[in-house]
């Protein structure tokens, strides 16, 4: 069985540190009013942004689980 450094540590680091950048991006575009949540189209892009983060997280998690147990 590969070590923690081979499996979940990179995953945690990727979505932990990468997540910090991602969340700061969301905060900045909200605070600067670059995204206007009163507009339907902007609400759509907000959802797409969040979806993308969890989409890639799920893909990586599934691939790690497949490598370990399939």
């Amino acid at each position, binding site marked *: *069985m*590969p070590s923690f*450094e*081979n*499996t979940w*540590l*990179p*995953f945690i*680091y*990727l979505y932990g*540190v*990468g*997540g910090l*950048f*991602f969340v700061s*991006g*969301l905060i*900045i*575009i909200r605070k*600067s*009013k*670059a*995204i206007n949540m009163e*507009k339907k*189209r902007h609400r759509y*892009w907000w959802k*797409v*942004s969040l979806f*993308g*983060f969890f*989409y*890639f997280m799920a*893909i*990586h998690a599934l*691939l*790690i689980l*497949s*490598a*370990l147990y*399939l």
Partner: protein
Amino acid sequence: MHHSLGSSTDWIVMIVYFIAIMLFGSYFSKYNRTTTDFFFGGRRFKWWLIAMSIVATGVGSHSFIKYSAKGFEAGLSSTMTYMNDWFFVPFFIFGWLPIIVYTKIRSIPEYFEKRFSPSTRFLATILLLLYMIGYVGIGFLTMGKAILPLLPPEFSIFGMQFQITLMGLVIVIALIVGIYITYGGQTAVIFTDIVQGFILIFAGMLVFFLGLDYIGGFGLFWNALPTTWKLPLANFNNPPGFNFVGIFWQDGIAGSVGFLFMNMGLVMRFMATKSVDEGRKAATFNILFVLPISAIVVGNAGWIGKAISVLHPDVVPPSTDPDSIFVVVANIISLPGVFGFVMAALTAALMSTVDTLLNATAAIYINDVHRPAKKWLSKKVKSWKEEDRQELNAARIATVIFTIMGVLAVIPFESFPTVYEAHGYFHSTLTPPLVVAIFLGVFWKKFTNAAVVATFIVGVALMILGMYYPRPLIEVFAHGTEYDPQHPYTYIGALYNLFVCVFVGVLTTVTRNQQKKLTDWIKTTPNHKSLMSAITFISGGIFVIILFNLASLPVLMLLAAIMLVLIVISSNYYSKYSEKTHTDGLTVWSLAKAKEMFKGSKVNDRDGEIIKVNWKLKESTDDLMYFSKNDMAKMAADPGDLVYICDARKILGGLKSVHSTYGKPHDEDGIVYITQEHIDQGQFVKDKVLTAEKEM
């Protein structure tokens, strides 16, 4: 080293493919009416067309060769760099993308002039040209490594023997690429890239399925791979040649921001979309769906090669050169002709990448070197058409020169064990100063002109020190990555480089009030002009001492600190910078203003319909289009608003379209009056229906 792979059938297929692609591209060169069309494709395309055209650029730039090599060495973790770009998407789609469109900048250095000063534009141009030329060099090196295994080790003409070397091959490739791009332009590149994008994905998947078939099915393939080969992320910090943490900082952070924010080739594609929203669609679709598929497309030959080397080490020896694994595997699993097709798709995609980069480099040259230099040197006013023709010629000459420089850039990259490492090192070294400057410039309105100059000069000086003294400077940031004396901290060096650039930029910005007091005081001294000349001269001297490593590390660090102070004083003294005028409409904090400046009047945000109209010619030289009152009401448009009309045939993806402004309405519903210039620009066909929509 493998040689003479493939058969004569493969060569015929490759040559036919190349001729067909070049003819296809040259057909679209008729859409280059101006330099704007040549470089940007006229801001008219639909998102799907741009998304597809990015496939070949993205896949080509990241290349079958380097990812197959890493796939063969490390397994599925070769996909890492294709699936770590999402973190900066909010910054891009709601920050940088609207800014580059609404400010109407034609190049990234131009943004620096608007946001900071002409001197930062000059520094940004140097750094960006170095970055682009380096990227072209990586493209040439990859193409050379892809084609070399297909050729014999030597050939003879008139009894004379010639050895085929990598550099010789790169020169021949550069000649072909240079000729093509010089006569194509952005529209030709976009359209050849669309075709190649589809073919590339097909070819990559073909290799995967043929490989699985060769091995005996997915089950055998999966079971043949060791568990560590199946993991999607590399080991955290080892080996030095391929580890997660280094690649995260080099590619996931510096690379992602570099790719989205400063890769002019890509930025120009997004600028070719008809609106910001279409650009958002193209970018997100590309990152969410195309990049993961591309990760399989480019890396699978390495995984297949690894599985074959486990099951049949006599067919693919484990000692096979990783950079030639793609060609070796494709040759083993394909029939004659199919191999030629796969190789043609691969090399043509690489050509697309290099084409795009060369086109973008020429755009930077025209905007940031040619035009400012001409403005400075010549006072003679030429007609618009004459000026444009001259610029188009200058762009073509510049492309040839940058092609030659790209070939020269191959020399240092050749010393790395694989293309992947060469690209990684190049990215971690050249992107940080520009990435930090663009990023802080766009998202932090307090970021000053002095701070960006300091980032470019002192940040680069500290990066040079990191190259000379990786221990202890980069070691502190290495996350336990082993020190490789030959290529020290290839990837994690990016974290050190980012850190020093951010540190210099932030420190300079937060001390701006103290700097102002100091500069004001200097201006009151009697000999301030001579004093400032001395300060500038000393700064240059210190940079040279650091560049050539002429002292010990502590002394050099002290000199770097002194240089920071001197550079900051100089830039505050010589440049006029005001936060108010240099941030209005130029940062994420004033996007509404940027939109208003783009339009030239108050923005009309009311939601309207997209309508269908027939066009009629109006003899006029004004850039106005005239719709009926009812049609204007449907579009929720007023005279003076911006309008976009397009051939209604969806398959054209906006190729036949044009932007303009609404004129005073008439009473003929379903009719739009347009000028001859609009017809020529949009290449509209008589009796073909158009769609019209309000832009803002």
